[in-house]
Structure formats: C-alpha cells, structure tokens
C-alpha cells in the first residue's frame, strides 16, 4: 500500500469511528472539554530508531471509549496489516515524567517502535492519545528495509520526495 494510501485509509477509518479529521501538522485542541475525537497526519521530530520518522498519525480520543485499544488494532487492519502475522509487544510506559497522570505503552511491531498509546488521567474519564509512526506502517506494508525505498504514490518514492533531507 502506498504511503499516501495509508494516510487516506487511516483518515477514512478514524472518520468512520466518529473522529474529526485535521489537516497535516495541526495539533488539535487538546484542551477542548470534549467529547472529542481528533485524527490526522502530523509532521514531527525524528524517531529514535534511525528512521527518518518525519510523519506521525495522531489520534486523540476524549474521553477514551472502552474499545480504544481495539480501535487502534483495527486501524492496523485497515491499512492491510494482519495482526496474526506479526508480533505486537506492549511495553508499559507510565506517561510523561513517570507520573501517575498517564499510563500507556510503547507499542512495538515485530520488535520495532510503531506507536505510543497513552491514557491521560482526567476528572471524569481518561482520554487516550495514539501516535503512530507512519514510516513503520509503510515499511511493514510494503516489505521495504529503508524509508527511502518506500513508494509514496505510484512511482514517486519517499526518498525522491525527501531528497536533501537528513535521514
């Protein structure tokens, strides 16, 4: 699946879950009282694992429904990743600064960082924030080893689109 198809599929999937889609790069109003469900591709800093990791897909569910985790797993299926053919490792992480304000996981797909999934404490009910590394999804989906080889749209590659940028 092309990189841009992955974004389109995720947009469609989360829109079906009732999320408002935000344009790339928009942070979304995290302080909004909710109920709220925001989703969209965003450009962020580099990933720690050597991937260019420029693109994240961020979903904010406020309050988090009981099925938030299931919805995340289903979103992987929506972009063509069959959960039963991969290993998902949920490494517990306790939110920013290790405080009790948040609880979640660093999710590894076949041992490599795929997403951060954090529940944030709130007065009534916790909210959930999911941030997925789009490059990882594309690498697995296209069975490629480096981000530069990824097909962005048809013959246009990720490498061509980002030539001159530091990997």
């Amino acid at each position, binding site marked *: 699946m092309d990189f841009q198809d992955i974004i389109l599929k995720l947009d469609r999937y989360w829109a079906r879950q009732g999320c408002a889609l935000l344009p790339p790069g928009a942070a979304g109003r995290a302080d909004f009282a909710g109920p709220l469900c925001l989703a969209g591709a965003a450009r962020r800093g580099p990933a720690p694992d050597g991937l260019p990791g420029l693109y994240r897909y961020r979903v904010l569910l406020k309050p988090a429904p009981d099925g938030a985790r299931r919805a995340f797993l289903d979103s992987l299926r929506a972009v063509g990743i069959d959960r039963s053919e991969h290993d998902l490792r*949920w490494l517990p992480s306790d939110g920013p600064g290790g405080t009790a304000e948040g609880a979640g996981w660093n999710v590894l797909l076949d041992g490599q960082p795929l997403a951060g999934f954090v529940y944030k404490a709130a007065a009534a009910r916790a909210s959930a924030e999911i941030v997925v590394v789009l490059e990882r999804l594309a690498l697995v989906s296209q069975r490629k080893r480096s981000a530069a080889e990824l097909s962005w749209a048809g013959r246009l590659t990720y490498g061509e689109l980002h030539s001159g940028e530091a990997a």
Partner: protein
Amino acid sequence: MTARDAVLEILAENLPGGAVRSAVEQLGKLAAQEFAVRALPFVGIEAYGTCRRLALYVTGVPTGPQAKVLAQIFPLLLGRLRFERCMTWEPSGFCFPRPVRGLVALHGERLVSFSAAGLRSCRVTQGQEALGPRPVKLASAERYFKTLEHASVLVKDAQRLESMRGALAAASRRMKLAIEAGEQELAGNLYLAEYPVPVVSGFSQEFLSLSPDLVRGALRELLFFPVTDQAGRLQPYFAAFRDGISKGQRNVEDGFRAALESRLKQLISSESKHT
C-alpha cells in the same frame, strides 16, 4: 456436601510485569485472609498472572449456602489490591494500573455474581489477542486453565516459564549451539506474552567486531537471548519470544533482526566517535 473449585479472573489491558507480580502475591494472601475471616473452608489457594490477566484459583470450596459469601469475598479482594501506580478508569473509583475489561467468577459451574470496577462478573473471557477478539466461554471453574490453554493462553506463570525454557533448549539442540537463557530476560518475557512462541534469527557478522559485552547488552535490552558456541564465543544469532502463534514467523524474525541491528549500528557509531 461436595466441594468444587472456584476461580476469579480479572482481565485487563496489558499490565506492567512488576504490577502483575505484586498483584499475584497480594491476591493469594488476601484470599487466604478473607476465606479465614468468613470461615469458608477450602483446600488450596493459587494465584497466577499474565500480561493481560490475574487469576485466583481456590480448590475444594464447599457447595451450598455457605458458598454464597464468594460473591462478597471476590469484589472485596479486588478493592484491597494495592499498586505503586494506578489510575481510575470509570466512575466507581476503582484504581488499577490499566483499564479492567472483564471479570470472570465461577464456583464449579455456577456463576458467582457481583459487580466491581464498573463491570458485572460473567463466564466469558478472551483468549490470545493475536487471534483476534474471540470470546471464550468457560463451562466451569475446573475447566478454566484447559479452556484458556486451547485459546493460546498459558495462565500459570510457572507453566509459561517452563515452556520458554523448553523452547530455548529445543532451539539450542536444533542449532547445535548454546543459548544463554538469562533469568532476567526470562522474567522480562514472562509478562510480555501469554503464549510465548520462540523466534530464532541472526544478525550481520560485522557486529561481532563489537565487544561481546556490548552485543550481549544490546540483546538484553531487547529481551533477546545471546547464542554462543560450545566454547562460549558469541555467534551471529539470537533467540527471542513473540506472543501468540507462529504465523508470519518470517516477518517477526526480520523485524527482530532489524531492531537489533539498528541498536548495534548505534553502538558502532558511538564507539567510533570515542576512538
């Protein structure tokens, strides 16, 4: 008067290993206290935990009106569990490290009915997550472990550990090489997988130029197991565990390898900066 076994299962989203270990210990102790306080006889109390569930199993609980106190004991046990870090997830205010998604409570075939953590107890749980969301119905408390094993969940910690040791020993025989099954890595894997499936993969020979301690350190960080020859020399292979089934094994082998090599590359570049 006959006696039947009783089971209480708390199904949750993936729990930190430390929280599971502590909860298992507390569950056993608290249950023994509560059964004594309420003068409910039993033969034995066992407590187990995986990354997704805590299970209390009590053997030889008499049937009849006496057993009705189980419906009081079980929610009380939940309320008395203490965690270093926990959050409330629903209006009842029950504090748990991650959201609770199900409660199973059975005495023989009978449902032990109560409410806690915003949920009602039932006889349906979930099996291995990798197989998708499939409800698993439990016919009786006595069938609990077998039914879950059929759903690719090894509830008993010792059984999971034994299965991991066995799998590493078998892989070692197949490769005719030794696998360093460190206790720390085994303990780390114990609460990451409900049904540990072994994965054996390799890494590029070039990384053997790094000091063996550095390579071992990188492997341990990822909870992988180093492979050595009979003389104890590190080989460009490693063993690891994934959760679930052995479908798509190649994806996992390649992914684990890439994760390790990316870490080893960082080590090489930091080493070359220092020299």
